């Protein structure tokens, strides 16, 4: 079974346009959550979100020169991050477009970020907006495929908030089974009326800046962004630089409720457990965890319980969602990049807005930037529908 290494990374979020900018913000505790400025919703000024600090036109001009009117914000974010990852991997354009390159994207909003346009097109007699073929989830992956002319296996995954963690897993498996030589994997989501209203109807959006793992946490803040990684197998590296090895992964279902975790966090527990088993590591080997940590009452308590069950001594953990917001389909890949950065630089990132531990669990996240010896790092992503996934990266 081939060992899988990360050879390229790209990221755009509310705290930066590149992997390095994001790291700087994490180190300096620059929180990206704030008032809504760029997208139209009645919740502007009421519910804080973590926006990428560019208008859609700016992103479009930056990527296309002459803006392409049919490309959605979600796809633009994906193109931005995938572009950085591809450049970073130093693969030749012939290698990228080859039938040996797999592309696995993930999104939970897709083109529905254009909530108003979708509403219009669903009723139009004729004409319609330029977005008629861009509303689905696959449109995001297809935008990347088209830009690079990729001929290999192409997939899009939607398992809610664990989507892009599963895209990483699926890409690694395609390589191991010989269906691809390399894989570009990740996810993207942008802020939308659709999601802000959906999550608000579920009463899980906070009117304050989110406070993951805090006793008085009052919900999550939605964010947007994209992250992509390039995976290659050991045999093909030829001395190339690598950031980390993907050593383990788990995909389990909580099988409890459509929109909340079981009280004991069975799904989270099982997915962390499966990731450990697949990596051949024990709980004591994990140096640091990038937790799912959304800031909702349900997630943080159940994730804490699952960690307490699995680890005799819970390793240091943080929720970077306290800086980036919850980027849904992008979160798994985004936090995979953060986890890998923590391995590369031997450092842990802060979990902001924390004051008091949850009385029942007593866990305290990493509160400030800290240098730390890290050998194996775990990243959790849990979603609606009970979809729980865990990734483990190890120092290469």
């Amino acid at each position, binding site marked *: 079974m081939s060992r899988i290494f990360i050879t390229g990374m790209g990221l755009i979020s509310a705290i930066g346009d590149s992997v390095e900018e994001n790291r700087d913000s994490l180190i300096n505790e620059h929180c990206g959550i704030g008032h809504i400025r760029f997208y139209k919703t009645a919740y502007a000024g009421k519910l804080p979100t973590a926006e990428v600090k560019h208008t859609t036109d700016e992103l479009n001009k930056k990527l296309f020169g002459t803006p392409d009117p049919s490309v959605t914000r979600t796809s633009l974010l994906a193109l931005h991050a995938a572009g950085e990852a591809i450049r970073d991997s130093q693969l030749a354009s012939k290698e990228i477009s080859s039938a040996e390159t797999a592309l696995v994207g993930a999104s939970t909003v897709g083109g529905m970020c254009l*909530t108003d346009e979708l509403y219009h097109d*669903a009723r139009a007699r004729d004409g319609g907006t330029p977005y008629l073929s861009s509303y689905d989830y696959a449109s995001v992956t297809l935008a990347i495929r088209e830009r690079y002319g990729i001929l290999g296996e192409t997939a899009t995954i*939607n*398992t809610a908030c664990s989507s892009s963690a599963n895209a990483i897993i699926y890409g690694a498996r395609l390589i191991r089974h010989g269906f691809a030589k390399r894989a570009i994997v990740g996810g993207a989501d942008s802020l939308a009326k659709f999601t802000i209203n959906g999550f608000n109807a*579920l009463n899980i959006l906070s009117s304050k800046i989110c406070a993951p793992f805090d006793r008085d946490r009052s919900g999550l803040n939605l964010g947007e962004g994209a992250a992509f990684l390039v995976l290659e197998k050991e045999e093909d590296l030829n001395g190339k630089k690598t950031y980390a090895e993907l050593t383990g992964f788990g995909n389990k279902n909580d099988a409890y409720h459509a929109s909340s975790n079981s009280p004991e966090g069975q799904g989270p527990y099982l997915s962390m457990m499966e990731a450990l088993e697949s990596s051949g590591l024990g709980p004591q080997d994990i140096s640091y965890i990038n937790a799912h940590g959304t800031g909702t009452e349900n997630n943080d308590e159940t994730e804490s319980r699952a960690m307490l069950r699995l680890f005799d001594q819970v390793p240091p953990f943080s929720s970077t969602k306290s800086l980036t917001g919850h980027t849904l389909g992008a979160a798994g890949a985004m936090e995979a990049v953060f986890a890998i950065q923590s391995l590369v630089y031997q450092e842990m990132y802060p979990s902001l807005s924390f004051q008091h531990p949850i009385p029942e669990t007593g866990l305290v996240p990493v509160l400030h930037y800290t240098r730390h010896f890290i050998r194996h790092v775990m990243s959790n992503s849990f979603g609606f529908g009970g979809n729980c996934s865990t990734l483990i990266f190890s120092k290469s």
Partner: protein
Amino acid sequence: MPYFHQSVCISPQNSFPETDLSRIRESKNNWLEATEPDYPGIPAAVKRRMGKSVRMAVGASIPLLKKFPPPDGMVIATANGGMEDCIRFLNQIHEYKEGLLTPGSFVQSTSNAAAAQIAILTKNHNYNITHVHRGLAFENALLDVVMLLKENPQAGYLLGSTDEISAYNYNIDRIAGWFRDEPVLNTGLFEKPAKGTIAGEGAFMVWMNNERTAAQAEMMAVKTIHTVDPGLVLKTMEKFLSENLPSGETPDLVLTGENGDIRMAPYIDIVESYFNESVPVARFKHFCGEYCTASSFACWLAIQIVQCGFVPPLLIKKKGSRSSCKRILIYNNYRDIQHAFILISAVERV
């Protein structure tokens, strides 16, 4: 080697609970709507909340979940999930000007709702994934199971697909030019080729494992590609066949996703004309309509055909002269750019 065992297909035709492919139900207003059973296995309170795509998927899975041990994973394909619920929520957003909304439709509209519901109803904690890659979602799900069965040779998996027609999404695709402007019946879909086709929907669920005993068909191989070059489609097929069939052999049937849209004709033509006169050609979209996971209906048909060795006459486009039907090549095309090949074979009895 992966095998298909029992399957359930909810479609616009007579596919469940009884199968009768000797007759064809007609489309209405360019729609082929799936005929749903009563779903006695779904609790009434749960059923009421479900949109059609989730209901069809859960309903189709129940007979299999009753018959087989708990699956080691469930792999579902759906390009869009609950489109009706999605639009219903969108309408609420507009109607109530982003006021206080009820979350039901939002939760039901997420495309992983079907896989989630099946997991919840059966308390199944195992591998759970939803593939949404438009016209190739089903092929990706199938490949996922093929890989899972290599990773865990003793395991058994639930593979499925589901997609529904919704009036609003039909409208979006219609103005984009994917459906016929003029009324056309499915029974006359191939008579006058024009731009566009008719809409369809359905759900398919099948149990897969590596056990030949009691299997209904063998899953040989699957391959997808994105291209608008018919030549590359042909090259991909040639390579696919040479890698997966003994040298010099051809399939006993080519089952294509011809849908009456002239823009797809170059691809269908190049695939069909590759084979000599002896190889029969059949098609299926006048039975199920066009939708993102329509190739799962073809997969269900292929499983039926290799068992009885007989191709329902209503499906046949070109007769050929093969005396048996043991190996079927499915070729599907979704809107020009997405192409898929699946090879399914009769189970070799030893």
